[in-house]
């Protein structure tokens, strides 16, 4: 029952907050809605028995990515907001207008239909399995997989992270104004 409750609330949180990301015109609110949506996905991971992935999701997104995005939003305000608000340059508003929404919505609709076609195929071909309620611990297994079967991907991703760290630091470092 708990699991069902968790699933229902997580799914609601995920979808609802994702809609919030789409609907709000305020970038800061959008970020917070994203946070909620990602929390919901973490909850869904938990209902799938992926405890380690769920906690990693919380750790990386809440502790890192979302705060980083909040910082980016704060650091990139400036004159832009004023000129956009008065539409001085004739470009669409920063958070979109009805045209961009309608184009995006149209494309989204097409993709929705496409994917429903795909999913229906998948669900027809794979009879739904009956899965028990047990949730074995995944931590030690994931640890073994990471350093045995997937060791190459593991090392490459660590190099990727190092590269991203150095690259981000170099790109974003303040330069002397002329």
């Amino acid at each position, binding site marked *: 029952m708990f699991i069902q409750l968790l699933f229902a609330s997580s799914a609601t949180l995920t979808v609802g907050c994702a809609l919030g990301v789409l609907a709000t015109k305020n970038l800061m609110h959008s970020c917070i809605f994203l946070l909620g949506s990602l929390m919901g996905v973490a909850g869904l991971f938990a209902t799938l028995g992926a405890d380690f992935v769920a906690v990693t999701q919380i750790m990386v997104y809440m502790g890192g990515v979302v705060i980083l995005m909040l910082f980016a939003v704060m650091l990139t305000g400036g004159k832009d907001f004023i000129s956009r608000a008065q539409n001085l340059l004739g470009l669409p508003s920063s958070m979109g207008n009805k045209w961009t929404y309608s*184009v995006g919505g149209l*494309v989204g609709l*097409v*993709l929705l239909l*496409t994917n429903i*076609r795909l999913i229906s*195929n998948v669900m027809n071909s794979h009879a739904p399995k009956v899965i028990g309620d047990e949730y074995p611990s995944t931590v030690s297994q994931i640890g073994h997989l990471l350093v*045995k079967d997937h*060791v190459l991907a593991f090392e490459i991703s660590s190099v990727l992270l190092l590269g991203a760290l150095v690259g981000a630091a170099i790109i974003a470092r303040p330069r002397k104004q002329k």
Partner: protein
Amino acid sequence: MEYTVGSIAPIFLSPVIAFVINAFFGRKLPRQGDWLATLSIFISFIFSARIFGDFVFGQFATDFFIHKTFTWFDLSHGSQIWKVDMGIYLDNMSAIMLLMVSGVAFLIHLFSTWYMDHDEKHGRFFVFLPLFTSAMLGLVLSDNLFSLFIFWEIMGFCSYSLIGIYNKKEKAGDASLKAFMTTRVGDVFLLLGIVALWMLLGSVNYVDIYAAIAEGKFDGQSVLGISFATFAALCIFLGAMGKSAQFPLHVWLPDAMMGPTPGSALIHAATMVTAGVWVSLRMYPLMVLGDITWFIAVIGAITAFGAATIATVQTDIKAVLAYSTLSQLGYMIIGVGVGSYNAAFMHVITHACFKACLFLSAGSIIHSVHEQEMPKLGGLRKYLPYTHFAMMACTLAIAGIPFFSGFVSKDRILGDALYYGFMSGQNPLLAIVPILGFAGAGLTAFYMFRMMFLTFYGENKQHHDNHGHGHGHHDAKGHKSHGHDIHHEHLDVRQNVPLLILAVFTLGFWFSGTLTGQSFGNLFGAKTEWFKILVEAPQVEKFVNHKREDFSKMDTREQSHLEHAHYHHQTGYAGPNPDEHKLHSAHTIGAIASIFIAFAGVLLAFLMYIKKSVNPWATRFPGLTKVLQNKYGFDDFYIDVLIKKGLLGLNRGLAWIDMGIYDRYVVDGAAAVNRVMYKVAKWFDNVVIDAIGVDGTGVAVNLFNLVLRIVQSGKIQFYFIMLVMVLASYIWTLNF
């Protein structure tokens, strides 16, 4: 006896910890942490001494070894093994080597605390010194070529830093770069050899390689048209040549004296250069299988003789020692090549002791007199009595005078070389090996005594020559030389005790186990000829059924379970078993000959530099001297010929092909053809292309542009929409 990793690891770890602490907090420690480095090496020494005691004084049998390993990573797939293990491999040879490295390094550290006092690079020096030592200890402990390579490279880096430690001097910087680049040539080959072995065997553990050799896994394998074993052995030996400064790659070692003298002592005696000999010894079965021992012997002989000739004309005291190191390394390599396994290894040990002592003595002289050009020295005997004593003992040892260690080890190598060259039925051309070896031995005695006579005997030139101190003074000390007085030696513990301790170990009976070679005058507690008994070439058959031991397991094998092996005159020849009798007579002849040659060398030096009854060579053979002073022109060869002529010549050749052939014939010819074509083309152009083609294309492009302009908007979201649409249409057109 129990051996855990905890009782072995501190040997390697304590200098590493000292390095880390000194690197980060050295400046804040009293005396910039030199005591910490020295203490850490002393801890290594204690642990090594325990292992040495267990292994040598009867605890374990001859072929006993400890092998602890864990799998670092494993990429095995199916039946193909691809894994890298890390671990510890300890046998008699490593036990002896560990004691030598840690002991000599400890004495060098102790000496350095005196030598580098008040030097501006004091702290930095004591950061790299323990790292260097730990890398060598790790190299000796490692059980596979991969970790050996790691430590090998750490040593390369440390030698680079130590040689170039006076980084404000351009010469020092050049020398360090030279050392780094020259050894790099060898290292590339070593890595190639390791990778080749890994590719074939899937593991680079010593025991796995030995087992593979015994099981014949190399049979029928070939690469680039030569046998696989030859290829791998050659690559590994080329790596060893770079590190051990053998003949074509030797140019870095004489320049390596740009660093502080104790650093040179560490590089030349205990650590870096012996690493090459060490890897050749470890991979000896592979060398035999690959049948390159003759090549090894020839390279060693050329180095031994060539370096000895150069050393006879050097005037810098450290340069003489550097070339003598080269020469002695040549003897070790000869030993590996002619199959006198334990004598080669013994020469590593004896050489480490007396060469460390020689360098430290030279450091003592330089630090006291602030002069290292021998013509400006002389008569130092009464000013530096302890140094004189120690240096004389070492000179006797290196010259191969009986009862000293150099005689014991070098004589055995020469005896085996004699057998190898003349009596074993090899290619008669290989007789060059013993000939060059003996000639080099005579020269060794000559140039070493030349150095002694010029430095310590004769009249003191220091009092008259007050102006020559500044130049030729390669060891830029932090403080200015006083220029008017020699510091009288007083018994400073840190200066003299290391020298005297090392001098004690120049006696031969420590190594041969007896004073006379008979059972008379035994070393207490040790076996007669313990060195020969304990060190023997690896018997690869033993390793076939070897089971690996878990890394953390405790080793509790009892002595009673193993029996002591008895010593045979098994010297591990590549060919058929050596004739015992012939070998024995070769050794006898060799011993007599080398004693004779050594005394002849000493006598020549005596006549030239003390009695002055024979003119020095410099006046007699000016041309030859010039060649030798140019070191056979190797440096010039590398720079002028290989780089300037070779690379630039290649460039010029390519340029000639470009300008001469391509330009003249292809381009100009094409131009002529073009001129004809032009007439035709002009008409064609005007009528067909312009009217129809160009204008038509323009119109078409214009039309196409209208479409493309919309697509190529530069707006990323538009691209994304296109992508999604294409994807969707692809899915909708699929039928599944």
